């Protein structure tokens, strides 16, 4: 686990290609702003996300994780 940043928590978002990722895309097209410390991973379906992958993300130092779909 990496050192945590107090000011900017790193958030990883697993987003379903067909809904949540499309929404994030739309947010970009609409020039809506969200924190740059949020990283989005597109997945074919939110059901594709495994517990092991979430734990790996925490091991690699993310502060929070979102599965959106």
């Amino acid at each position: 686990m990496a050192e945590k940043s107090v000011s900017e928590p790193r958030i990883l978002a697993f987003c379903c290609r067909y809904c949540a990722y499309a929404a994030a895309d739309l947010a970009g097209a609409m020039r809506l702003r969200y924190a740059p410390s949020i990283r989005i991973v597109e997945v074919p379906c939110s059901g594709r996300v495994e517990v092991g992958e979430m734990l790996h993300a925490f091991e690699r130092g993310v502060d929070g994780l979102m599965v959106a779909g």
Partner: protein
Amino acid sequence: MIVGEQKPLEEIMGLLGDARKVLIVGCGTCVTVCFAGGEKEVGILASALRMKSKLEGHSMEVDEVTVQRQCEWEYIDPLQPQLKEYDVVLSLACGIGVQAMNERFPDALTLPGLNTTSLSLPVEQGVWEERCQACGDCILGLTFGICPIARCSKQLLNGPCGGSQNGVCEVDPDIPCAWQLIWERAVAFGQVERLLEIQPPKNWSVSRDGGPRKIVREDLRLTHVE
């Protein structure tokens, strides 16, 4: 299938003690299909151990491998060259797999990460119910295919007992009375008279009471020509 449950993380941490480098060995057969010790569970436990040990201030290096069957020599033999790199091996197989590892690789200490619980049937997704106790003298032919050794709390051969109420066992209302089930099957087949025959005491010498069991099939053994 053989069914197991993962031990609590605290207990596993206690077993591992001060080990710095750990290899978790999963099994690709029974414990994979009961979601206790397959490749996924190995990965999850490895992550958990790495994070927990780091939080507790002694980083543990944890590697992962899953073999197809941990209870057969030919599947575990390929592990041998890498075992010397580890302080300890943690097996997520059933008790047979753990012992196979210790017997085959006496220089590497293999510890159990699971509690092996039963020979069970997955009656629905996420639910396993005990169906066999491997008693060594199957009586399913006398009991219409329902085992009172595994499913009757008293292992009665001539049931039901007075604790059978409304089809459930007095031990726990979630346990169906095995003898009620047997009776209903006998009624359905029109053969209740078969249950009137009193069964004599069971031969437990072929179960655990006779000590560890062993089968030798001479027709299957490899013959060594001098």
